[in-house]
């Protein structure tokens, strides 16, 4: 089975983020990056399917040069090769533009299965995978928690609201967006890290993919990024841990009357 994993690099969950001076994006200096968490699960699922059914796992990443680190990690964990969509034309794309570029790269590979995390930690669009499916004219399922794959069809378990679940049958090729927690992602081994150095990595530009700049034009733009206004009047309690504990208990007992 030929499997493409859409994998994105995003700011680490632990990194301190600040809005930039122009309020258009975050201040990127000093930010550390990591692989988008749901994509880590998508990669693991792809590797497991390959181990079971044979074939190939190809990582497809759109991002600047620094995203090469995310690709290296994926190759070290066992992906066979990688496509890195790196071009100034790919900066500031919306979900539609990102999906168009990814779809152009994936179409050339003609895979059996495309996996993506269900959403990214940065933009949180939660739509890139679905749009890729539409652009490639493939069936899709979102928020997948289990995959049972045969050579020509799939059965997947989807998560629905409020603890409800549903099995969906679908033909291959298909696109799935993967929910975190579907598996236990592996760590890269030292051997894997060494092997990654010799794995094929193809850099692709908008021109390589035959993408017209018009097609990549954003259909939605983020005009301002800012710290949200507080809805609740949060009363911050300061002091030493002991003082905080005493003050909080006093408030819970005498002010909120909840203990």
């Amino acid at each position, binding site marked *: 089975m030929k499997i493409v994993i859409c994998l994105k690099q995003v*700011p680490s969950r632990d990194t301190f*983020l600040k809005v930039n001076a122009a309020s258009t994006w*975050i201040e990127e200096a000093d930010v550390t990056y990591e692989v988008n968490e749901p994509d880590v699960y998508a990669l693991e699922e792809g590797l497991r399917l390959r181990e079971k059914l044979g074939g190939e796992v190809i990582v497809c990443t759109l991002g600047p040069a620094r995203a090469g680190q995310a690709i290296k990690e994926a190759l070290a964990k066992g992906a066979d090769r990688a496509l890195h969509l790196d071009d100034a034309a790919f900066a500031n794309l*919306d*979900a*539609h533009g990102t*999906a168009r570029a990814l779809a152009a790269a994936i179409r050339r590979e003609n895979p059996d299965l495309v996996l993506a995390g269900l959403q990214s930690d*940065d933009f*949180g669009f*939660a*739509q890139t995978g*679905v*749009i890729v499916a*539409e652009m490639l004219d493939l*069936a*899709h*399922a*979102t*928020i997948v928690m289990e995959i049972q794959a045969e050579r020509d069809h799939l059965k997947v378990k989807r*998560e629905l*609201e*409020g*603890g*409800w*679940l*549903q*099995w*969906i*049958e*679908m033909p291959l090729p298909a696109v799935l967006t993967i929910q*975190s*927690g579907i598996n236990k992602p592996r760590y890269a081994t030292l051997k894997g890290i060494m092997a990654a150095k010799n794995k094929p990595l193809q850099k692709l530009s908008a021109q390589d993919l035959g993408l017209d700049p018009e097609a990549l*034009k*954003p*259909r*939605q*733009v*983020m*005009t*301002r*990024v*800012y710290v*949200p*206004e*507080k*809805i609740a009047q*949060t009363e*911050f*309690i300061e002091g030493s*841990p002991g003082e*905080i*504990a*005493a003050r*909080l*208990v006093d408030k*819970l*007992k005498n002010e*909120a009357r*909840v*203990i």
Partner: protein
Amino acid sequence: MLVYAEHQEGRLARPAWEAVAAAQQLATELGLTCAGAILGDNIGALAGELAGAHLAEVLTVESPQLAQYTPDGYSLALRQVIEARQPRFVIFSHTYQARDFAPKLAASLDRALVGDSLGYRLEGGRTIFIRQVFQGKFSADVEFRGEPPYFVSFQAGAFREDSVHRGSGRAKVTPIEVNLSPQGIRTRPQEKFREARQAVDLSQAEIIVAVGRGIRKPENLELARKLADVLGAEIGASRPICDNGWLSMDRQIGSSGQTVAPRLYIALGISGAIQHQVGMKGSRTVVAINKDREAPIFDIASYGIAGDLFEVVPPLIEEIKKAKSK
């Protein structure tokens, strides 16, 4: 304006009415008329119910192919409604179903979906939608570019079900004929089910101590348990804790887990992403302990402690014991 009224288990549930409320409000402010759209099989009664809202028209698509939701069937059907009526905006509630097919529908028309919006504002002729980025750490103003239709989904609770404008009469119900071939529907959904019966019912808990990523290791759950014990509280968790198997899935609070409304909710090391907030914002008093002062949980907390939970919780347990023994 066209609003998609999703039905669940044969009912127009809260998301449908929240979407109607959003669409009516936006339509009024923009000077547009607002129609509703409903898809399915044998939906006459639901269409009648929707027609009780103040809407210019209720458009229905009935087909046995739509008896069960599929992304192919629903996007093909709604796309034909959109092509017939050419709305400027198409409004959804950000449900699991809308997440599954609205991006596909928008892309099939070469348009964008501004998903998961929390609200909007009008500014000098511009319609600006507000959504969260970086897991709720920041908000972003988002605007459409290019030609309509513009697709928008609103987060649960962004608009109130009870603010739906009821009509004085009934809106006209118009069936729309669409072309749906069985071959065009590629996925086969099976019956919905729940995994094991939920052993823990957190919806009735009076006090909940909930843990998030900030707890760091499963061994540290003991600290949260001690706090829960002195309070007589239930333990709950955000999604990653249950994903890691540190607590069972039935203790998960949030959009994919349980919805709770205790008197007191203590969030330990929970950043408060929207998916978690959806499950717990009905709590009366919320205490948040988190190292990151900018964490979104502090947007909804009654009492905030911007500090290390491992330093604060042990003396807190002692203070609660003292208070209880008095």
